[in-house]
């Protein structure tokens, strides 16, 4: 039973110039699926269509028995609680503390007055402390998010997404703003956490080596269509040439 089924998804930002051309994919309910491809090929658009941060032009996105594309505002909000997202630029609320940023993950479940007063259920707070421990940021609990380094911020971002106890994790270029060593640490963290919590992951990335190393499945996109869908092992140089075009960058 796939966690996510995408049927014929299309997106045009400008009429007549589709960025996504009828994409159809099934994302399995475990493991990491990495989407690779050149800039502008629609990778980010695809990820953002799934939780409708970008509105699809046509197609279906079946998640938990519902077509996300057709949901009204309230139903969409409820569905988004089950989809966690990690962003390229972390998108933390800079002026809030690390703990408050983590608790943002529960905002879909806490009523506005309690959220304002920071009165979260005990189990949420306990869960937050656990996650902080796992990502190694316990000593930063009450520090403002903008005092953290890039890698630390992304850890908070991942923890925030996991606070939602999501059924699917989306990651839009989570390591593009990080140095190579930190990128590997973040990818390991994502892989380990999602494995232990049984959460399927869909990552969009531009670092092919990183994708090969951490993904269970690689989806290569070129000009809005899927041109490769298989294991990292099967991703040959020939395939990469088809995805990216040109070969000077390969060696």
């Amino acid at each position: 039973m796939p966690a996510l089924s995408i049927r014929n998804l299309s997106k045009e930002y400008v009429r007549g110039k589709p960025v996504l051309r009828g994409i159809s994919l099934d994302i399995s309910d475990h493991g990491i699926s990495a989407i690779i491809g050149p800039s502008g090929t629609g990778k980010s658009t695809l990820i953002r269509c799934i939780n409708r941060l970008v509105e699809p032009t046509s197609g279906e996105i079946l998640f938990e028995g519902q077509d996300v594309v057709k949901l009204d505002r309230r139903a969409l909000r409820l569905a988004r609680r089950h989809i966690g997202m990690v962003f390229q630029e972390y998108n933390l609320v800079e002026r809030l503390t690390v703990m408050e940023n983590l608790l943002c993950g529960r905002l879909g479940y806490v009523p506005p007055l309690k959220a304002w007063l920071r009165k979260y259920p005990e189990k949420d707070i306990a869960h937050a402390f656990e996650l902080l421990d796992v990502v190694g940021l316990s000593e930063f609990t009450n520090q403002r998010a903008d005092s953290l380094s890039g890698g630390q911020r992304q850890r908070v971002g991942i923890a925030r997404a996991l606070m939602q106890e999501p059924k699917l994790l989306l990651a839009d270029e989570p390591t593009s703003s990080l140095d190579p060593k930190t990128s590997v640490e973040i990818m390991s963290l994502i892989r380990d956490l999602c494995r232990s919590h049984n959460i399927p992951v869909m990552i969009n990335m531009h670092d092919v080596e990183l994708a090969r190393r951490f993904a269970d499945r690689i989806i290569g996109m070129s000009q809005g269509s899927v041109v490769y869908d298989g294991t990292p092992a099967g991703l040959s140089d020939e395939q990469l040439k088809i995805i990216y075009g040109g070969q000077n960058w390969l060696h």
Partner: protein
Amino acid sequence: MTSASRPNPFKSSAWSRAGWVALALYVVYACSRLEITWARFMVGLDNGARFIGRMLPPNIAQPDSLAKGLTESLEIAILASCLGILISLPVGLLASRNLMPVWATWPARMCIALCRSFHPVIVAILFVKAVGFGALAGILALMVASVGFIGKLFAEAIEEISLKQVEAVRATGAPFMNVITYGVLPQVFSRFVGFATYQLDSNLRNSTMVGIVGAGGIGGTLFSAFQRFDYDFVCAILLSIIGMIMVGEVLAGWVRAVFLERGKVEGE
């Protein structure tokens, strides 16, 4: 080689010289129309000196009236500021074009523009007609002024926030109010505190004036002292207003320290 062979680097164009001449001519003409003459100026200086002589030394002729007027002005300023701040929060939010649909921003922005159109004294006159003489009119007038000022600046501050943070909170499935509380407010809170304390100070000064049209406060005491030619009492009132404004500055600084310091530590 003479300097005459090099062009003068400071030469101004004929047009700008003509402009200055035209301006000077106009000033002379306007002064003659308004009867601004040197003779009047000299007489005025003499009158001014005598006036200051009558003001000094300051004399607290009616201490009860002075104390009552001052405290009333302070109360008007604080109440008007609190009410104005409370109202300008939702109004400013509704007026921000990056977060709200057109049917919300339009009325909110019109409301703010209306509040800003008139000087507080004019608004005070209107409220005195509406609710009668006294402090209530003054409070309402300054509340309107506060909403106009804080609301406009607050809306502009919200329009400058990073939408990425808002997007992330939205993506967790948070309802609208939670998105505002966690995604928007933390980004603008410290600026909001700045606007609010500035308006508190401004209201303190305005509260001394609305009394002149009967809306309560020290303005009324000042005006009647003036009309009775009690110039030394006038001087005492003016000095006490200066004292009150200084108290207000300390108050505003304290408010800023409390809210912005907490803001840094607890991230509110």
